[in-house]
């Protein structure tokens, strides 16, 4: 490829010949631009008699020359170029509408702090508002006025019950196993290993069953709610629902929320049972407690109150997970990345809120002496 330029009094002449492909010689280009900036130059002429092939790397150079001559208010003569190349350059300059892109302002420290505080306040308000909407939807469901498709509900129910059985069973079984194991080490020193049965039974039914069920369901179902609804947000499906006047909480949240509220107590039950079985395996095989005795002690330790408290926790966790998943899904941004962010937030906040809620419930029960 050939690329020559020379200055002839007021005229800068650029001569192109041969094929001009993949040109990336920064030095030569810069010196050409510098020559064009020379105050003596009043006109830039391009001669391209021998130009055969060329690509965008040439157009880039020519556009830069046009820019320079426009800025310096000098003339340029590109008539030597192939007609369509001239047109292409024209086209590149035809729409000159600069977008307004606001740089984010740097705020002073206090103002920054205040803005952050207000943002948090706004988020909390939005979250509470959403919870209120969810309760209102549940109310409409109970009075048979909610708009949602039964099939959505059935799908959601299947997904968070029947399809979750395997993983929940496995995880709670292991937790029961671990509980018994860790407890046994301590209890053995007092020769009281038989109380492993009571330990496992009480721990699983009162809280561990619900927690394990909650953690697994948050990772499994909560994440999928956020991803599904978030993708709908990206595809403008949620906008479409809103403009059709369909309440989003009814249509999207209600089937998911109600199926989780219904299934979580049962999943908790399953987790309780599997945990106790896991404990039993350790007790019988490792601590050499007879199965009859293990069952007897387990029965003695089980009481209705602990049992109901556990189920209640499961119920509340179901609500928390569904609300977190749907909330972050609906408030998802508009690109693929934001679906990932929404999913992460949904799972993390479900688990955090589960812990917080457990604390609150425990405190209230203490106060009420339950």
């Amino acid at each position, binding site marked *: 490829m050939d690329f020559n330029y020379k200055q002839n009094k007021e005229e800068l002449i650029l001569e192109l010949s041969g094929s001009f492909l*993949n040109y990336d010689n920064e030095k030569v280009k810069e010196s050409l631009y510098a020559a064009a900036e020379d105050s003596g130059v009043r006109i830039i002429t391009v001669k391209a008699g021998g130009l055969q092939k060329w690509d*965008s790397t040439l157009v880039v150079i020519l556009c830069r020359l046009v820019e320079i001559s426009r800025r310096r208010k000098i003339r340029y003569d590109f008539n030597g170029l192939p007609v369509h190349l001239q047109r292409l350059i024209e086209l*590149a300059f*035809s*729409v000159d509408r600069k977008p307004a892109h606001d740089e984010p302002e740097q705020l002073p420290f206090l103002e920054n702090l205040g803005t952050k505080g207000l943002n948090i306040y706004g988020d909390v308000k939005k979250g509470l508002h959403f919870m209120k909407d969810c309760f209102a939807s549940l109310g409409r469901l109970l009075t048979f006025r909610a708009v949602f498709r039964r099939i959505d509900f059935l799908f959601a129910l299947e997904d968070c019950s029947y399809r979750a059985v395997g993983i929940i069973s496995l995880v709670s079984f292991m937790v029961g196993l671990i509980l018994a194991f860790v407890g046994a080490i301590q209890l053995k020193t007092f020769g009281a290993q038989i109380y492993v049965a009571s330990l496992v039974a009480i721990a699983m039914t009162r809280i561990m069953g619900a927690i394990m069920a909650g953690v697994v369901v948050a990772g499994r179902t909560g994440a999928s709610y956020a991803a599904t609804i978030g993708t709908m947000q990206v595809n403008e499906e949620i906008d479409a629902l809103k403009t059709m006047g369909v309440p989003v909480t009814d249509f999207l949240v209600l089937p998911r929320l109600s199926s989780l509220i219904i299934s979580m107590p049962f999943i908790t039950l399953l987790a309780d049972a599997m945990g106790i079985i896991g404990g039993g395996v350790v007790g019988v095989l490792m601590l050499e407690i007879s199965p009859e005795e293990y069952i007897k002690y387990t029965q003695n330790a089980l009481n209705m109150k602990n049992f109901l408290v556990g189920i209640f926790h499961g119920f509340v966790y179901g609500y928390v997970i569904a609300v977190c998943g749907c909330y972050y899904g609906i408030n998802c941004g508009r690109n693929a990345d934001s679906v990932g962010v929404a999913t992460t937030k949904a799972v993390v906040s479900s688990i955090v809120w589960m812990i917080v809620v457990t604390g609150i419930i425990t405190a209230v029960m203490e106060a009420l002496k339950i």
Partner: protein
Amino acid sequence: MKNDAVRIKAENLTIAYGDFVLMKNLNFEVENNDIFIIMGGSGCGKSSLLRILTGLQSSPTGRFLIDGMDFSHSGENRRAELMRRCGILYQSGALFSSMTLGENIALPLQQYTDYSPKLIKELVDLKLSLVGLRGFADFYPSEISGGMAKRAGLARALALDPEILYCDEPSAGLDPISSRLLDDLILDLNQSLGTTFVIVTHELASIFAVGTNSVFLDAETKSIQARGNPKELLRNPPNEKIHNFLTRGEKTHG
């Protein structure tokens, strides 16, 4: 007509999803420097045909050649090499939403060339200004309109100065002026860089403004109903259906 002027040759292609056959026995040739229009009613399989021609989907029968090389039955490397010559504008723009427009366009350049970052930036700015989006390099796809996303998608398709450019409904979603500017751009690229275009479009004005050759896909007979220069087809429509399509079914008076 010399054979080496044929860039894309489709032989006996079938468009099908499982047992659901949309088109059978498609044969056509796209010549070098053509602006080849694929017409047909909505849902007749035009986008699917483009998917086949760009290797995203396979045809159960037949084959197609790019520059005389069998694309359908060649290995991964050969395909990648052939695809490097092609640019694709998807119906929805298909911009990567986690990257700015500038990064979107720079991606193929970084992937396939060893240009300096400075030149890449200059090329990105050039492509953006060609589609009328000068200065939008730092915007994210979620911050621009649907029509702008389309144009940005075109800028990305143009990044490597492709020899063949596939466009799925390039002017859908554009206002009449932008749509005409796009036609101008297509013509200029076609005549200056010698880019061959394969365009799916319904836009009658563009069909007549730019098309040099075309095929008309018909869903009922699952075959090509007509082919040739669109202006010719309008003058001598081979049948009623094509006449209706090209005149939007409007009755001619007198």
